[in-house]
């Protein structure tokens, strides 16, 4: 299947983009939006999205085949990881879910079509219409494709012309999704544009600034430094919806560690670690295991290691850059050395102060002859960011209080906390986590599988894009 040249990103790196080209493209996008997109009913758009998503779930769907054939080379994800991640995403894009999202964020499913009232508004004699930005610019990150795809979905619901800026090595899947939407309804493709460059390329800043001038609203996903640079360069009065990088962890309560429950939990934790090779903001860096007796965390770590070894045969991680592999190799060595030292101290009854400065215990389980997966049982309970790509920490704690205390340094960066706890503890734990700052609490195994209605980093993703017009009567 050869993709036609529908979008600027289809033309590859050979295309030399200029700010003028982008401005012209934005002009055309806005005109096409007026001509068609703005005239569509929500129901039509939702059906187009849901129909396209349904096709993506079909093994024989052309765009999916291209994604799975060319995706591993471009994204670094193995075929199984990629198809699992895409399936999880497209399963969420149903008519029911998209309509529910509109109701949740905007109060009524017709909010984007007509002036409507909720019961409260009606009592006040008021009707309201939610209006999307004329032109929406998305600066997407390249670690995994789903957030870029979902940004496009939201922009369609708000009837916005859209420019999706992808990193050079992260444009394939967004392009395929855009092509698939255009294949369902060609007019839809004409108010959508995709471009690709890397932040560090010469000329990138002037291209971005041309887009900022044109945009009514900008969404940006990336690191603090990148977001800060975007924030500085956006003209006054334009809206920025910024998604900074987040990190996530899990908590396994002492009540959840019966032999039977443990088996299930270990499989679920392996789902979390292998999903998108742990590269998303919702992927776990650490599992905190609440210990009733010493050794529970070690048991969890050992079983998780076995499960990750099995996954490597069914869903291999895929190749890494030398730098990424080196980061894993270096960390493994550091912990293996600590493990060897700690066991030498205990076996030979050597005093820790004799030649070791620190004697926190550690144990490492790791794939042999590759960096495919690593589990580190770390006696030091302080939160530690993983080097990812299926490298996970397991840390024993005596209680939930310790988790919050040891994760305090990353408190304001935490997105998701996966919790395994009995119902009678769940309410109290959740309220504490919410007030502490976590924006999402989910079962172990579902970290990288947020529902379409998910409030991204604690904010209404659709609601944040629209402006309201109130009609008082």
């Amino acid at each position, binding site marked *: 299947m050869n993709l036609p040249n529908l979008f600027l990103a289809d033309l590859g790196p050979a295309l030399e983009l200029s700010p003028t080209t982008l401005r012209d493209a934005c002009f055309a996008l806005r005109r096409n939006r007026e001509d068609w997109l703005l005239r569509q009913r929500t129901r039509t758009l939702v059906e187009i999205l849901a129909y396209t998503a349904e096709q993506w779930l079909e093994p024989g769907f052309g765009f999916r085949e291209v994604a799975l054939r060319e995706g591993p080379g471009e994204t*670094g994800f193995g075929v199984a990881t990629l198809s699992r991640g895409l399936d999880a995403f497209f399963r969420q894009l149903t008519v029911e879910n998209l309509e529910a999202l509109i109701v949740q964020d905007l109060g009524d499913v017709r909010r984007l079509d007509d002036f409507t009232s909720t019961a409260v508004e009606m009592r006040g004699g008021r009707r309201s219409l939610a209006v999307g930005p004329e032109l929406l610019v998305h600066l997407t*990150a*390249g*670690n*995994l494709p789903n957030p870029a795809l979902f940004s496009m979905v939201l922009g369609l619901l708000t009837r916005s012309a859209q420019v999706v800026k992808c*990193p050079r*090595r*992260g444009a394939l899947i967004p392009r395929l999704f855009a092509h698939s939407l255009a294949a369902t309804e060609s007019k839809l493709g004409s108010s959508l544009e995709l471009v690709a460059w890397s932040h560090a390329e010469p000329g990138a800043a002037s291209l971005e600034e041309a887009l900022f001038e044109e945009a009514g609203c900008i969404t940006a996903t*990336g*690191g*603090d*430094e*990148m977001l800060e640079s975007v924030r500085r360069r956006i003209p006054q009065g334009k809206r920025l919806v910024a998604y900074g*990088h987040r*990190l996530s962890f899990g908590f396994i309560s002492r009540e959840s560690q019966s032999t039977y429950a443990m088996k299930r939990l270990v499989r679920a934790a392996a789902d979390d670690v292998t999903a998108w090779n742990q*590269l998303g903001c919702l992927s776990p860096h650490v599992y905190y295991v609440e210990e009733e007796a010493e050794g529970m965390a070690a048991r969890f770590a050992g079983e998780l290691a076995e499960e990750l070894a099995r996954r490597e045969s069914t869903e291999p991680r895929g190749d*890494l*850059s*030398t*730098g*990424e*592999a*080196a*980061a*894993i*190799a*270096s*960390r493994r*060595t*550091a912990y*293996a*050395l*600590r*493990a*060897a*030292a700690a*066991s*030498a101290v205990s076996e030979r009854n050597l005093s820790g102060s*004799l*030649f*070791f*400065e*620190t004697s926190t215990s550690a144990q490492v389980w790791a794939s042999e*002859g*590759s*960096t495919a997966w690593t589990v580190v049982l770390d006696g030091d309970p302080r939160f*530690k*960011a993983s*080097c*990812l*790509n299926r490298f996970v920490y397991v840390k024993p704690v005596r209680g939930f209080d310790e988790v919050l205390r040891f994760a305090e340094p990353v408190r304001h*960066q935490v997105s998701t906390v996966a919790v395994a706890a009995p119902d009678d503890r769940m309410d109290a734990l959740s309220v504490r986590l919410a007030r502490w700052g976590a924006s999402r609490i989910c079962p172990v195994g579902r970290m990288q599988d947020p529902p379409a209605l998910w409030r991204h980093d604690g904010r209404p993703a659709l609601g944040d894009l629209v402006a309201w017009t109130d009609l008082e009567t």
Partner: protein
Amino acid sequence: MRLQNRLHDSFSNLLSDVRLFIERSSGSAVPPSGKEWEALALRLFGFQCRNVPVYGVWCRSLGISEASVTDWKSIPALPTHAFKDFDVSSLDPADRVAVFHSSGTTATRPSRHHHSVATLALYEASLEAGFLRGLAPLPTGGFRFVSLTPEPGSAPHSSLVHMIAHLGRRLSSGEAVFLGRPGADGWDLPLEPALETLVRLAREGRPILLLGTAFQMVHLMDRLAGSGSFLRLPPGSRVMETGGYKGRSRSVPRDELHALIRGRLCLAGDGVVTEYGMSELSSQAYGGESGLELPPWARLLLVDPESGKEVGEGTPGLVRVVDLSNVGSVMAVETGDLAERRGGLFRLLGRAETAEPRGCSLMTP
């Protein structure tokens, strides 16, 4: 008592054998052979395996014994990280006269590399011989040493400052000058006084060797560029830059930095030399933009992080250095840097531990 004596004896034998190796490598008619290097490396490995406790533990945990290692490439490397957590030394605490720390922020625990009088002397012999190779040919009459680092009294734990001070004492034409001072988080370089001194020394007309870290060089060059000025160093002058940036100045690719320095200081094509060294090692690599080279008493091994096997020419790998002059600590060290070989030289490609997974900016060490 007898055992103590034997160990002591063996240690001093090793020290003098390594020293002899370094001397014979430098300017001798018959430089030592590769076989001699390997034999000495294996002897040193055996000694360190027995006498550096944490290294012994590490080797045993890898299932490696003294007898099982028959070629130098199988000698287990200790990560530089170990110098932070463990006492990597065979020296009796009473014999330790100096300790070098890795640079870094005050928040992290530094590496510590201990020296006795004898190992410090070997460090000095090694660094001096290495410097003379790396900077050859030196101008007749020598360089005036001007360092952007603090003077040794206010940076007693910097192996770099110790090195510069030693070289200054031995080789500088006129007293070595130190322009930096210790700051809240590392070293500061008061730019205006530094420039005044440089201008004054440049007027004297003797070739200058300007030494400093890459980030100090960037600060100095930015200052010159900011006012559109140039500082014409006397003919034959050179610059030796070393080390990374650690977030203290804008990070500039090495080629660009060299071009910047050459331009602002009016230096010839080979005027800027890179030095690659660290507190955990006693030898340094030198080179230019085409790559770096270690002296003959230290060897480089690049390994694939996936398999741990040696990589071929042009393939990036993790840097291991086997440095014979690290007698009192551990000779085989994995540095956490990435590099590739190109025609006998190697080029540094970055740090392994700061390699970020795609799209992620939350890596904290």
